[in-house]
């Protein structure tokens, strides 16, 4: 491994010597485990290339605020930055904030992952990390109740009913209900009922398949979920799970490390199980998305140096280091490396294999105005949870919200795409 790193760095160095100058670049990272890994590794890059890296890391929504403020006022000094392809990708591309990456080698990235990186015929960002939806469950509680991990929505509901025990304060089921935050995790439910959020640039979450899913979701959370579900996102549910109050939890795959860490969780690691997301009545295509990528700023004044950094930061070697640190990277090759696989949780790897084969590459309506669209869909989710999926006017609400989302698509010129 060290040798491969050396070779890579020598290549970068050689390339650097051709147009050598003492340059500085400014890199903006997110508060993310991979960002931490990069920060620690940056001195290696600096030594090998002589390029000074000024790095800042910010919490994700503050990163967006800062990038937007800088790019929208055309006064930015950012060279390379981490980005969320599904949340801001379309908008950043439309405003010409990403630099096109011609000649970059994308062969090691799955086609699904490149969906979010390509616009037209060019690629504008490099996928970094992926996540997919899984079912976390308490092996001990299921065993005690004599249930096997659910593989369908019907089984999930039956299991939730059986495991729900108000007397001991344990809820049978938990999942995000906090409006916009819930939209991403509910997407798999929608897909498995045969529904979609958007289809050909039109909002279709008010159609029957999607509404069945939304009703199911609301019913599950109202009957077997924690108190105040409509305000809970992962940062609220995780402590509940870690405190032993949740029997089953559907969410993104990235939280596994923390719910088995004895310094954080009251549950012993061997009592925590991960299962592939259950199948719905129509299909089983949970989401598997590129949650973070890295891009070069079009306004960058140091494009050569920036490209060098980008290449290094998304390299196979660093991806391997990421995997060994339990970060689920986007590159394909690291997922077939036996040394890495030996270290990762087998169920996690299996759930990914399933999602990689059958999953859907989006977990939200893929559009520029996705922030507002998520809030609108979130209103329907909240209404469903508040009425256990049984509200008489739920269909009307969904239709109204779909109309609003269609308006957004029209306003941004993305209707019918």
């Amino acid at each position, binding site marked *: 491994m060290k040798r491969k790193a050396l070779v890579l760095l020598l290549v970068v160095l050689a390339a650097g010597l051709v147009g050598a100058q003492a340059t500085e670049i*400014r890199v903006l990272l*997110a*508060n*993310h*485990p991979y960002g931490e890994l990069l920060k620690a590794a940056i001195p290696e890059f600096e030594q090998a290339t002589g390029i000074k890296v*000024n*790095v*800042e*890391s*910010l*919490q*994700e929504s*503050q990163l967006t*605020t*800062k990038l937007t*403020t*800088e790019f*929208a*006022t055309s*006064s930015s*000094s950012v060279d390379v930055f981490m980005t969320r392809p599904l949340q801001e990708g379309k908008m950043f591309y439309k405003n010409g904030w990403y630099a096109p990456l011609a000649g970059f080698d994308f062969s090691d990235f799955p086609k699904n992952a490149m969906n979010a990186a390509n616009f037209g015929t060019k690629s504008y960002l490099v996928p970094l990390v992926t996540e997919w939806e899984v079912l976390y469950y308490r092996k001990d509680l299921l065993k005690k109740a004599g249930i096997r991990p659910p593989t369908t929505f019907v089984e999930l509901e039956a299991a939730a009913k059986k495991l729900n025990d108000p007397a001991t*304060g344990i809820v049978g089921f938990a999942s995000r209900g906090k409006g916009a935050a819930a939209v991403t995790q509910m997407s798999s439910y929608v897909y498995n009922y045969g529904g979609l959020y958007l289809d050909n640039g039109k909002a279709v979450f008010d159609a029957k398949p999607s509404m069945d899913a939304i009703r199911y979701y609301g019913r599950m959370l109202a009957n077997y979920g924690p108190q105040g579900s409509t305000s809970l996102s*992962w*940062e609220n549910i995780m*402590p509940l799970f*870690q*405190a*032993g*109050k949740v029997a089953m939890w559907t969410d*993104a795959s*990235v*939280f596994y490390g*923390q719910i088995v860490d*004895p*310094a*954080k*969780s*009251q549950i012993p690691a061997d009592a925590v199980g991960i299962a592939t997301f259950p199948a719905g009545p129509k299909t089983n295509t949970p989401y598997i998305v590129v*949650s*973070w990528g890295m891009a070069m700023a079009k306004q960058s004044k140091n494009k050569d140096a920036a490209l060098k950094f980008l290449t290094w930061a998304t390299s196979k070697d660093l991806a391997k280091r990421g995997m060994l640190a339990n970060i689920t990277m986007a590159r394909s090759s690291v997922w077939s490396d036996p040394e890495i696989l030996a270290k990762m949780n087998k169920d996690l790897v299996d759930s990914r294999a399933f999602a990689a084969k059958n999953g859907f590459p989006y977990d939200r309506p893929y559009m520029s105005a996705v922030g507002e669209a998520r809030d609108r869909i979130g209103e329907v989710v909240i209404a469903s949870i508040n009425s256990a999926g049984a509200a008489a006017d739920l269909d009307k609400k969904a239709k109204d919200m779909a109309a609003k989302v269609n308006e957004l698509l029209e306003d941004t010129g993305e209707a019918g795409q």
Partner: protein
Amino acid sequence: MKRGRTGRIVSSILILLISLLILFPFLWILSSSFKKQVDIIASPPRIFSFAPVVTNYIRVFAEQNFPKYFMNSAVVGAVSVAASLLLGLPAAYSIARFRQQRLSVFILVARLMPGISFLMPWYIIFSRLKLMDTYVALILSHMLIVLPVVVWVMSSYFRSIPIEIDESAMVDGATRQRTLASLILPLSGPGIVTATTLSFIFSWNNFMFSQVLSMEKTRTLPIAVYNFVSYAEVDWGAVMAAAVAIMTPAIILTMIFQKYVVQGLTLGAVKG
């Protein structure tokens, strides 16, 4: 006399109660900073039954550039407050004595504007002037928050000082500025100490301006707390430890400030 005694006991009990209410969340933050996460979120809540750890503090001080953030916050805070006193005290005095109500509201208007409306415009200006990531940009932006507080609090305070004091000094031949410096200011100890304390606290805690106008070199402490709010993790213990690490110097510095301000004032009185 008897009424006085029961009154004193009642108020003592009330003071104790209020102190506990104020302290309670702070005690929770303090004790959480010494807990492992599993103990912070435990149910039922573990108020006393946990094994304390210092790993949170180690993470806070070792991993992040804490000394640098502290220096930045301290320098920006001290200079913003000092500059605001320099500009604000004469203005407040003038407003109080000449009843310049509209001027006072005008200066206050600076504080009425929502912080977000400054982000983009200031970013444009400061980046064009190549002042990004400098103390100057931060100090100027903090002064905008702090100056109105100084002017507002002090103009009200000066108004409560009887005008006869000014008049007798001026009859003796002192100029207005001399009256202010040697006579009125020393009498305004409590007011100035309060205005200074609050101003320093506002600067110390400011997040929004510092986030946009600072980059790597001039990052301030409040931003450091967010270092522990990550994409898929909230490091509760470290956030609490970072909060304590931010609160403690603020209190110590305000204590130093208060002493310094009071000393400075009494010196002026002795000289004059």
